[in-house]
């Protein structure tokens, strides 16, 4: 921990910040301070108010009440330029880089006047190189951002802030897009920064990494501070309790009893016009077993789930579902064959946002005689069915006429789960099933998937969250550049090897890096 050389006196003080959006109290009377040379984690579920607070800090929003003091001086409100000028920098979850510009140009963008860009960048380049060496953020100043990996892009974002001589750096969920190894590199760079007197606010909803990097943790729940903890004097359980407001039920996971193969892929390749091709994939999904795919996103996972869900046809190779060849089937045939699909993009693909909750619940089965007869939709049956599903799956909306897009992310995911799991599927294809969900909703989704496995379904999960995969899966594959590693039983998998494989390193089946 780097808290050792912290100097007394807060660098940033947040006093009584409140912010309201319509009916939602996003922040209520928040007060805490950031000391020089410390990493302060802001931990909370989605919707707890973390991002709102940071946007207030950085000047994107004006608070309804409260003030912020930077080194004892009151921070002008609503001006990102003022925050930057004083030395507060922010790295957003979604990068804001120009892909067609070089690293150096991106760093200079908005800092220097554009006309000087080509003439006087010798000093700028030197400064950038010095900075990147000083903090261990290696990146070539002349490469185009388009050519950089996600981890490198993040470094550029951080360097962009450092170039402006910030003293406080705010990072919004920085590890969401990184491999475990990249996270380790990021953390060591962050430790370097605080050792040299900077202060960092680290926003996260992941407990483990919060413990690893932070000196202190401010836990937010429903817009209020649920507790401030010293990481050295607390436990993960205490943080989780503060964050969720209750103890999480333990997942009921039983050993797999793999039975017959439900879905088999035989050397399937998919060639698309763009990237994300699949090369010679073979895979077997068995009843009563959970198989997971680990990998950095953009390595063909989406193509694979599209393929397994019937949204895409293979260029070559065969798909066999319960002994039947379905290489050239449509989504409808997959649905009718008992394939439950939980799409990655739940808002854009999972639901028709403008239609009602009941309509979205039957959208995969609206042809059933239960819901329509002779072309007439049976409104009363549909409403009854929807009501019982909303009760069973705890979908909380304001009524049956409500548009599905007005539901929260967690409730949308529950709607999709209700739609597909209620039909007792033979195979479940889940893509990022808990991304963006809060811890409570996450554990509900996990338990539903494990229950489905218990009742004899084959479950297939693609996730960027390794902890999730380790918690649910019986076997793992790692995906890299459209290829699949061999199957790794979960007992033999270790998180470091998986992380290396995610970056393309080949690991022998003995489990050692080659």
């Amino acid at each position, binding site marked *: 921990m780097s808290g050792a050389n912290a100097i007394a006196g807060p660098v940033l003080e947040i006093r009584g910040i409140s912010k309201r*959006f*319509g*009916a939602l109290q996003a922040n209520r009377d928040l007060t805490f301070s950031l000391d020089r040379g410390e990493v302060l984690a802001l931990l909370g579920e989605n919707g707890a108010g973390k991002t709102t607070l940071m946007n207030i800090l950085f000047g994107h*929003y*004006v608070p309804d009440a409260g003030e912020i003091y930077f080194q004892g001086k009151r921070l002008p409100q*609503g001006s990102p330029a003022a925050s930057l000028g004083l030395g507060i920098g922010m790295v957003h979850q979604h990068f804001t880089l120009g892909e067609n510009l070089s690293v150096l140009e991106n760093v200079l963008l908005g800092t220097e006047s554009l006309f000087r860009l080509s003439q006087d960048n010798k000093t700028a380049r030197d400064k950038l190189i010095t900075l990147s060496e000083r903090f261990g953020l290696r990146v070539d100043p002349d490469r185009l951002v388009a050519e950089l990996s996600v981890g490198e892009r993040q470094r550029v974002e951080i360097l962009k802030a450092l170039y402006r001589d910030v003293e406080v750096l705010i990072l919004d969920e920085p590890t969401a897009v990184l491999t475990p190894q990249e996270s380790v590199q990021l953390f060591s760079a962050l430790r370097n920064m605080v050792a040299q007197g900077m202060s960092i606010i680290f926003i996260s909803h992941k407990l483990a990494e919060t413990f690893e990097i932070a000196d202190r943790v401010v836990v937010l729940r429903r817009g209020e501070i649920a507790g401030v903890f010293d990481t050295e004097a607390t436990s993960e359980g205490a943080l989780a309790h503060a964050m969720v407001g209750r103890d999480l039920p333990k997942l009921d996971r039983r050993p797999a009893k793999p039975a017959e193969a439900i879905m088999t892929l035989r050397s399937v390749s998919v060639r698309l016009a763009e990237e994300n091709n699949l090369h010679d994939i073979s895979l077997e999904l068995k009843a009563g077993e959970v198989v997971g795919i680990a990998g950095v996103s953009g390595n063909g996972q989406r193509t694979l789930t599209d393929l397994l*869900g019937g*949204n895409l046809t293979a260029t070559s190779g065969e798909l066999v579902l319960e002994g039947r060849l379905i290489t050239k089937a*449509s*989504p*409808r045939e*997959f*649905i*009718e064959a008992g394939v439950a*699909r939980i*799409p990655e993009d739940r808002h*854009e*693909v*999972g*639901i*028709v*946002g*403008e*239609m009602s909750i009941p*309509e979205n619940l039957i*959208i*995969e089965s*609206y*042809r059933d005689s239960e819901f*329509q007869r002779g*072309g*007439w*939709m049976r*409104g009363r049956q549909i409403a009854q069915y929807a009501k019982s599903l909303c009760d069973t799956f705890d979908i909380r909306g*304001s009524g049956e006429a*409500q548009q599905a897009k*007005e539901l929260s992310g967690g409730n949308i995911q529950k709607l999709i789960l209700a739609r597909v799991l209620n039909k007792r599927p033979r195979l479940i294809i889940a893509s990022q099933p808990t991304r963006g969900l809060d811890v409570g909703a996450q554990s509900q989704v996990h338990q539903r998937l494990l229950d489905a496995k218990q009742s004899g379904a084959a479950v297939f999960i693609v996730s960027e969250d390794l902890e999730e995969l380790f918690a649910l899966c019986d076997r793992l594959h790692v995906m890299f550049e459209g290829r699949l590693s061999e199957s790794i039983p979960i007992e033999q998998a270790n998180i470091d090897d998986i992380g290396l494989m995610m970056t393309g390193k080949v690991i022998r089946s003995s489990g050692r890096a080659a």
Partner: protein
Amino acid sequence: MRLERRQGVPIAVRLALPLIAIAVALALCSFFLLWAGTNVGQAYLSLAKGAFGSRFALTETLTRATPLIFTGLAAAVAFRAKLWNIGAEGQLYVGAMAITFFGTGLVSLPPVLMVPFLFFVAIVAGGLLLLISTVLKTWLRVDEVVTTLLLNFVVLLFVDYLLFGPWKDPMALGWPQAARIIEEGRLAGIVPRSRLHTGVLFALGAACLVWILMRYTRWGFEIRAVGHNIKAAHFSGIPVKWAVMRTALLSGGLAACAGVTEVAGTKGYLTVDISPGFGYTGIAVAMLAGLNPLGVIGAAIFFAGIYNGADSMSRAMNVSNYIADVITATALLSMLVCSLLVQYRLRRD
């Protein structure tokens, strides 16, 4: 300043929306009337009288609203499925050509059968015309805005050719017009000493049917799902291409019905000027109605009333009847702004 989405807009507000928009439009247009140097109150009074103020005005407005209801429905149905059919004008004329071909003596049936038969052939013709653009769109990704719009001119020029050539009625004293629709195929008058004919009843019935279709049937379910979110519809196993094709047949068919009401109802025979742009005005009607089939009825009557009323206003007050175009255009714009403000609230921070 920024926009923030509102939660749960009350139904009453949504229903009042077009009325508010119209009020705003009239208020805005009063500046133009002032500019033209007339008394605004009297001008609007004569406009209202000209639109709805007498038996003659009322029947004329409804006669004019009839084709607008059909073209408005055509646009509403197609736009609901995100099929941008700008070709209602062409489909209208194709329908008119179809009934001229079959209805001027080639087929002769008793009236109870002849009228439905004429509607049927027109619907098929209009539907097929839009189907051309739709097939190009779904299979070859050709932009349907372009193809439907351009086909309007192709159709209109073809009508021109027919009326100056093979279909020219020798009894018409040299005018470019086709032979009359036979008596069995005419839409009967329903109010004596007026031009109003049964076409208006067909139009009202069609609006109700379309409303029921969109709301209570499987087809409507598919069309709405495809229109709102084509990706999710495809993902959920809805046959997207077929749903769009069915929509095309329906939309083109509805537009063609406007051709039937004008040729077999109002006019009696095909000329090249049976439609003063009903196909294009239908788009504005559908937008003002918020794509709601029942709303199309009100919007079409409003548009027809404004056009008729503006004529009498221009006679009485000596202002240009182009004010009608200004009013309808302003109503549309204020409708768009009002619906934005109903869905979002402005926030100043």
